[in-house]
């Protein structure tokens, strides 16, 4: 059995030794360097460039501007392409833009012999603009008379959606009983950046009619399609190679600069071009987690019954559509999928273009935002009726067997209630809730919690498909090729475990090809939506079964037995009846390759289209100490408990949770990309954007309730994104418990806290 064991990562040795190859390690010979020139206004039109001085810089090869590029709009999000036009992603990007839609928009590109020359030239380019007043918020951009950011959306609303559950409207429900406690709140989340270690970087060149792009991406097959759409090249003439990558977290689930880099190379006769972003460009010019404002009403009966809620969510998309409304639509689903409203739930979501940086996919895809809203509202409602917020959740939270009435996704396995109970015990909830009542003084403590649920992959909203190829080696080991990608999460390791488990080989006999090369590797849409161990895992299992059957078929020939009498276990062909070893797989492999009678190269390749889904869930408990006069929150203890089905590799699962909790801490307390009133980022660097450090991080406790999910290929369901979801509201609720002050926007940074504590009379002079 290799599933369920904490085997070491298959890439640990190479990564620790520094021999693992990343994009920048794969530099082609005599490449040029591209530097993108970014707008210094947030909204307006480029009128002219003055390039003379820049062109005179020694080493500059060529400068391309927005007046040179093809006027072909293309989409960037890493979604499966839809064969139905109505469901295709919004195509609203050009390679370089005349109409500037956010500060840092791409308006020109310098190609030079080295990066010093490119940077010198870029600094010398002068641009004439016709600037417009930028819109930073949904309110500004939807105000009467606002100028359209994209002509195709004259009201600046990219999309809207909503749903209503219950027999009556929210208004009717609120008025249906005399004694309901009602809250009207606004919960606001902030833009944050992924801060993956490796910035977006690619090489592009063309030889022998093939355009090759090496890129740090989560989604190589989608990059190929989008490069084709942007450049007009046939998709088969494009080859995308994805080596190891230094993190993505959703930012690299977008096709960022590969199309521009490919086009630049094509303009220069196919010469290799490197395009690597700086950290500052990564903040300003790639993607962000959307800031979403939730206007929420909640009505609760004094016995703790959640009677009705209403939510209107406004998602700040920034200048381009990217993943667009999919995120806000997912966000409002968080309301129905976490609680049962007795009489009514009304939710609507709007995604609007503005002139801040572009919102895209980021670990949790709208759910970290809505979890903040639902879980803050829950604690505010519980406080209003004097109820323990954990009891409130037990009473009103989603139960086993829940099925979403619209998507029909179910909790096929359900461990939420058990997870809450486990977290309750680990944090000593009951004792601490009691101990921290009625505190005084400048330093106070509190404990808070939040829960979430999260689907596994994107079915039925989008296509779920994955494929795998297995090739037998002469020594009886197997080469596994996946379209699914290793992005640091441990995919290669768990796919290897799955292959070993299902074929009957030891883990040492499984070799996994970590590099995706779209000319060679089978198709998969890539790493996102916590999908790969579930969806791509199904492809591994299906292929492994076919592969095993072919080995057994050949072994039957070699052994002169009927195939039904044979099985493959522990690297041996065995008698299925009693398990007695008959021949090693290695011997069978040698025979298969070199038999003078029947030579056969044993391979298998399968596509698995996934048409099921299941909810994962979990919770976070946090104990905090608040230094009121200094506005500081110290997290003393924090526990995440996850209901993610069978753990494929417990140590890797724990590491996955630690990483997500760390992101949750930053989201809760310190991270926010801020803009001035001209739409210029104020803190787009790692000095002023406060990513937590090791010293800001308490011990991260990861726990699980393992309920095998029958739909998962190995009992597993989503775990990639969920750990990042519940931390922020749990900490917010702990601060509420400690101080009695409800902070309704993220992050809970010291200045905001000092202002709120001062207003609440907790700070005197």
């Amino acid at each position, binding site marked *: 059995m290799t599933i369920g064991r904490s085997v070491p990562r298959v890439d640990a040795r190479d990564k620790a030794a520094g021999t693992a190859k990343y994009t920048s390690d794969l530099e082609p010979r005599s490449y040029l360097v591209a530097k993108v020139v970014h707008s210094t206004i947030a909204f307006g039109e480029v009128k002219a460039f003055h390039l003379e001085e820049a062109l005179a810089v020694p080493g500059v090869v060529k400068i391309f501007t927005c007046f040179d590029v093809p006027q072909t709009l293309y989409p960037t999000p890493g979604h499966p392409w839809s064969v139905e036009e109505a469901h295709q992603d919004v195509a609203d990007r050009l390679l370089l833009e005349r109409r500037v839609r956010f500060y840092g928009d791409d308006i020109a590109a310098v190609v030079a012999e080295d990066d*010093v020359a490119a*940077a*010198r030239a870029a600094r010398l380019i002068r641009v004439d603009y016709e600037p417009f007043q930028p819109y930073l918020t949904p309110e500004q951009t939807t105000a009467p008379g606002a100028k359209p950011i994209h002509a195709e959306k004259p009201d600046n609303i990219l999309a809207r959606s909503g749903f209503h559950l219950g027999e009556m409207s929210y208004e009717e429900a609120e008025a249906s009983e005399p004694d309901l406690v009602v809250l009207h709140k606004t919960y606001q989340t902030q833009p944050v950046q992924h801060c993956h270690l490796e910035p977006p970087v690619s090489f592009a060149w063309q030889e022998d009619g093939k355009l090759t792009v090496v890129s740090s991406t989560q989604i190589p097959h989608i990059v190929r399609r989008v490069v084709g759409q942007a450049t007009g090249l046939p998709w088969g003439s494009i080859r995308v190679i994805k080596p190891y990558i230094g993190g993505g977290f959703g930012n690299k689930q977008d096709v960022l600069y590969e199309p521009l880099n490919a086009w630049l190379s094509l303009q220069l006769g196919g010469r290799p071009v490197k395009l690597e972003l700086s950290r500052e460009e990564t903040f300003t010019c790639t993607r962000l987690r959307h800031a979403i404002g939730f206007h929420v009403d909640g009505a609760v009966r004094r016995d703790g019954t959640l009677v009705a809620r209403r939510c209107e969510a406004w998602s700040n998309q920034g200048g381009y559509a990217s993943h667009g409304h999919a995120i806000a639509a997912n966000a409002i689903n968080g309301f129905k999928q976490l609680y049962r409203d007795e009489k009514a739930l009304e939710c609507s979501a709007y995604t609007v273009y503005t002139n801040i940086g572009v919102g895209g996919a980021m670990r949790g895809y709208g759910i970290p935002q809505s979890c903040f809203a639902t879980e803050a509202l829950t604690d505010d409602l519980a406080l209003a009726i004097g109820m323990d917020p954990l009891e409130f959740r037990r009473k009103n939270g989603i139960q086993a067997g829940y099925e979403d009435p619209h998507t029909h996704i179910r909790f096929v396995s359900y461990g939420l209630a058990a997870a809450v109970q486990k977290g309750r015990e680990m944090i000593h909830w009951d004792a601490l809730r009691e101990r921290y009542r009625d505190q005084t003084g400048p330093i106070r403590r509190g404990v808070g919690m939040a829960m979430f649920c999260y689907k596994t992959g994107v079915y039925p909203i989008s296509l779920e498909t994955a494929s795998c190829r297995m090739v037998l080696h002469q020594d009886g080991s197997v080469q596994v090729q996946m379209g699914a990608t290793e992005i640091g999460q441990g995919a290669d390791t768990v796919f290897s475990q799955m292959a070993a488990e299902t074929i009957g080989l030891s883990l040492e006999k499984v070799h996994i090809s970590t590099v995706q090369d779209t000319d060679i590797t089978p198709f998969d849409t890539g790493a996102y939506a916590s999908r790969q161990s579930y969806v791509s895992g199904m492809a591994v299992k299906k292929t492994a079964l076919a592969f095993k059957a072919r080995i057994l078929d050949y072994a039957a020939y070699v052994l002169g037995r009927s195939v039904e009498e044979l099985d493959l276990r522990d690297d041996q062909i065995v008698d299925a009846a009693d398990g007695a070893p008959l021949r090693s797989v290695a011997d069978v492999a040698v025979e298969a390759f070199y038999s003078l009678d029947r030579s056969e190269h044993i391979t298998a390749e399968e596509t698995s289209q996934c048409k099921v889904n299941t909810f994962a869930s979990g919770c976070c408990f946090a104990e905090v100490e608040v230094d009121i*006069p*200094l506005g500081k929150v110290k997290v003393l203890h924090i526990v995440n408990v996850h209901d993610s089905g069978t753990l494929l590799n417990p140590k890797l699962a724990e590491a996955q949770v630690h990483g997500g909790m760390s992101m949750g801490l930053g989201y809760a307390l310190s991270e926010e990309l801020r803009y001035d009133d001209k739409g210029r980022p104020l803190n787009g660097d790692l000095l002023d954007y406060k990513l937590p*450090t090791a*010293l800001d991080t308490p011990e991260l406790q990861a726990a699980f309730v393992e309920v095998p999910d029958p739909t998962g290929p190995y009992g597993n369901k989503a775990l990639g994104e969920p750990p990042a979801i519940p931390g922020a509201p749990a900490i917010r609720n702990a601060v509420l418990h400690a101080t009695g002050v409800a902070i309704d926007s993220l992050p809970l940074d010291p200045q905001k806290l000092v*202002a709120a504590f*001062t207003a609440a009379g907790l700070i005197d002079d």
Partner: protein
Amino acid sequence: MYDIQSYHQAASVADAVAALVRDPEAMPIAGGTDVLIQTREGRHAGCHLVSIHGLPELREIRREADGTLVIGSGCTFSQIHASPVLRPRVPMLCDAVDQVGSPQIRNMGTIGGNVCNGVTSADSAPSLLALEAQLELTGPEGVRRVPILEWYTGPGRTVRRREEILTALRIAPEQYEGWYGRYLKYGKREAMEISTLGCAVRVKLSPDRQRVEALRIAYGVAAPTPVRCPESEALAVGRPLDEALVKELGQHVLTELQPRDSWRASKAFRFQIARELCRRAFRQAVIDAGGAIHA
């Protein structure tokens, strides 16, 4: 790749001064933890650098016969933090420089660079102000000493002339004997952090440890340059150690500070932090000095 036009590694301080005189565009570089970042950002693109990095004559920490502490400008923050000469005499300074950036920055960055940069957020500055350090400069005309109280002329500006090299920081014995102090840095995170506000408080108690004999309060990021609070220091002299004094100090320092109202932190927020840090640093310094705050 850094955009550096020319680079001269000096063999001595005299050689560095000569190189700065020769090339009117040249600037000194020591640990490089500020200069290289500014070069990468484009602010010093195409710079001409004269390196004093690693010069042995700038890396010495010693105590002179009269007790004066002499810290070479090229001493790194790590070196100062671990110095057996400084630790027993000016622990506040040793702890303050240990709050700069990251371990890597502290291994490269120098106290001379921290002071010559002239910024109000330098973590060593409030302590050096409270210690009334003397700064020793070597230029084409020879050596001169400047009290740190006369060093800063504005944000990022000091009295150092372009051709001068800061060679040493000197702390007289009367500045540390009998004194106890604390530097409290306020940042938004616990490491890799620029100071939002920093407060250094030094106190000397009466022989019976019941009263303040002398007090020094210095701030970083509470004004365009690091500053002292002379009026607040004066009002404490001779006062008993009680809560009324703690409260009054916290209120009074605010009249001597001019923090910026910026997106990094509002003026109101900085005032609140300045008030609270002063009180906390004073309390700790009094405890270090063997005193106690009475109700």
